[in-house]
């Protein structure tokens, strides 16, 4: 069965190719996208089941022997990410259908290629292929971001493309240096080279830095809040759950396998994590539209993920994995609700839609759940994730980091309250009306993702167990390396 692993990205690619001639028929195009999303969820589920004993599913492309072949490897971490990414693609695609945002040229094929690129990036055990899959996903995302008609969107698109292209170029240069220093791009053969060979360690850190730009950590975070809020609402929601997280995911892999949790990167990572958390959340203060604020919070939450990587060790990494999985759901939910508000009310500016809570109780409930989860209020999933992270920080005697994480949580809560007061609270006065579309499908994706956050919070045990398995594998990548090297 393991040789079927390439199907994870091959099937969405085939669906995308089939979708191009079918793109005039909106119904079949939509069915194709949903099929691709379901496929990713299903593949993740299958992989989760196949790796339930902590094993690693490995496939070698072209049937070549181990050191020569390009290897794909799926473990618990990868399968969790596949599941949640497929879910986000599905939910945001339904939202795009409801808004009619998918009537832009090549929306469906691009979404499917994005799905394929992300799926491949999670599975590859080869740095160069990581670059290729990330590029495949990015190329599709360029189409998604830019294909809107507006001038603003074109400007945002240029910022987005240039920043990501620069990060890709840096990633490629770093991979070249790593190959020059260590003689391989296969993760198994690179295992631990970062901890004992000087030049390879430098190259490994460069790889991490390039991935950091893609994940938008401070000081390379500027592109994200400048481009995401201007893209289409459904596109923002879709990308928020996928591409920056691929950067973080790859950083976890490289940090775990190549750098082997070497102590030298601990302090820089923690400094970057703290700065990202604080600067992200402070950047949101002066903003006045929902999606702008949420974009800054996205930067801030990436800091939590980097913090787990910086602390390292099984506890912190487990908490990081848990946090990442639930956070993707929560963030997608927030962007979906913000997008729904924009579509229904015509604006996402704070203070322009007073009394939304009375007029649209379901939508407001979805926002409240997701916002509280983002801030980390019990019993929602965000609370479990943050509790795990803060506990790991205190266990590792990183009291300052733990403190920063707690303070930023409160600032996040304040920011969410600000959105609530600005857009949802107050007396019901008719705001500027947007389009009169059937609201149910617009609201449903946000509500669905928000309720998943509740489920992940109340039933945290299951996901926590999976995250612990993934975290342990990251802290001690021996089994992964053995499986990949064959």
């Amino acid at each position, binding site marked *: 069965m393991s040789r079927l692993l390439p199907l994870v990205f091959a099937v969405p690619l085939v669906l995308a190719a089939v979708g191009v001639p079918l793109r005039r028929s909106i119904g079949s195009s939509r069915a194709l996208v949903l099929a691709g999303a379901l496929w990713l969820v299903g593949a993740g589920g299958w992989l989760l089941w196949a790796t339930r004993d902590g094993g690693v599913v490995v496939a070698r492309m072209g049937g070549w022997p181990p050191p020569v072949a390009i290897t794909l490897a799926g473990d618990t971490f990868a399968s969790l990410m596949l599941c949640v990414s497929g879910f986000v693609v599905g939910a945001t695609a339904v939202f795009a259908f409801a808004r009619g945002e998918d009537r832009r040229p090549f929306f469906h094929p691009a979404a499917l290629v994005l799905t394929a690129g992300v799926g491949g990036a999670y599975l590859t055990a080869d740095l160069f292929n990581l670059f290729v899959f990330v590029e495949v996903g990015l190329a599709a995302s360029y189409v998604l971001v830019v294909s809107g008609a507006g*001038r603003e969107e074109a400007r945002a698109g240029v910022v987005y493309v240039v920043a990501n292209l620069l990060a890709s170029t840096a990633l490629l240069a770093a991979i070249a240096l790593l*190959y020059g220093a260590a003689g391989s791009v296969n993760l198994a053969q690179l295992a631990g080279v970062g901890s004992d060979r000087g030049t390879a360690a430098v190259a490994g850190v460069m790889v991490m830095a390039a991935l950091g730009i893609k994940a938008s950590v401070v000081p390379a975070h500027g592109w994200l809040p400048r481009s995401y809020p201007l893209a289409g609402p459904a596109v923002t929601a879709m990308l928020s759950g996928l591409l920056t997280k691929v950067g973080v995911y790859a950083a976890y892999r490289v940090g775990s396998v190549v750098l082997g949790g070497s102590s030298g990167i601990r302090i820089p990572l923690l400094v970057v994590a703290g700065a990202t958390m604080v600067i992200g959340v402070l950047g949101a203060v002066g903003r006045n539209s929902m999606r702008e604020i949420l974009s800054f919070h996205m930067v801030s939450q990436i800091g939590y993920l980097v913090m787990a990587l910086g602390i390292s060790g099984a506890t912190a990494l487990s908490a990081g994995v848990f946090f990442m999985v639930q956070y993707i759901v929560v963030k997608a939910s927030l962007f979906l609700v913000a997008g729904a508000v924009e579509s229904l009310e015509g604006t996402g500016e704070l203070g322009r839609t007073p009394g939304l809570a009375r007029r649209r109780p379901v939508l407001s409930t979805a926002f409240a759940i997701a916002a509280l989860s983002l801030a980390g209020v019990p019993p929602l999933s965000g609370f479990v994730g943050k509790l795990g992270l803060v506990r790991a920080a205190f266990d590792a005697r990183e009291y300052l980091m733990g403190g920063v994480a707690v303070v930023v949580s409160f600032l996040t809560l304040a920011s969410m309250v600000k959105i609530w007061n600005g857009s949802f609270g107050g007396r019901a006065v008719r705001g500027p009306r947007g389009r009169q579309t059937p609201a149910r499908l617009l609201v449903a994706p946000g509500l669905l993702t928000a309720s998943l956050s509740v489920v992940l919070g109340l039933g945290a045990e299951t996901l926590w167990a999976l995250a612990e398995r993934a975290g342990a594998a990251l802290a001690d990548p021996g089994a992964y390396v053995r499986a990949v090297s064959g």
Partner: protein
Amino acid sequence: MAGALIVGILAGAGTYLLLQRGIVRVILGFVTLGHAVNVLLVLSGGPSRRGAPIAGARGVPADPLPQAFVLTAIVIAFGITAFLLALAFRSASETGDDDPEAA
């Protein structure tokens, strides 16, 4: 040494172009920067690291991996450059200049 100089000059020129305002210059900057990275990739290979891939081959074998990397990188860069140029063309025909930041 010559290789390092080439990479340095290309990277420097590319960075300079990237910092210009017009989007066409930015694209040219990316092309140049991409070339710098491609040369870097070629330089990163070496026959000293592993022997000839085919037993019994004579002469100094080339390292095949960086060549495959460079080819792939060129393919990707080609596609993205074409896309960026189309984007620049669209924004230029809409606004009359090629400065994406001009308000």
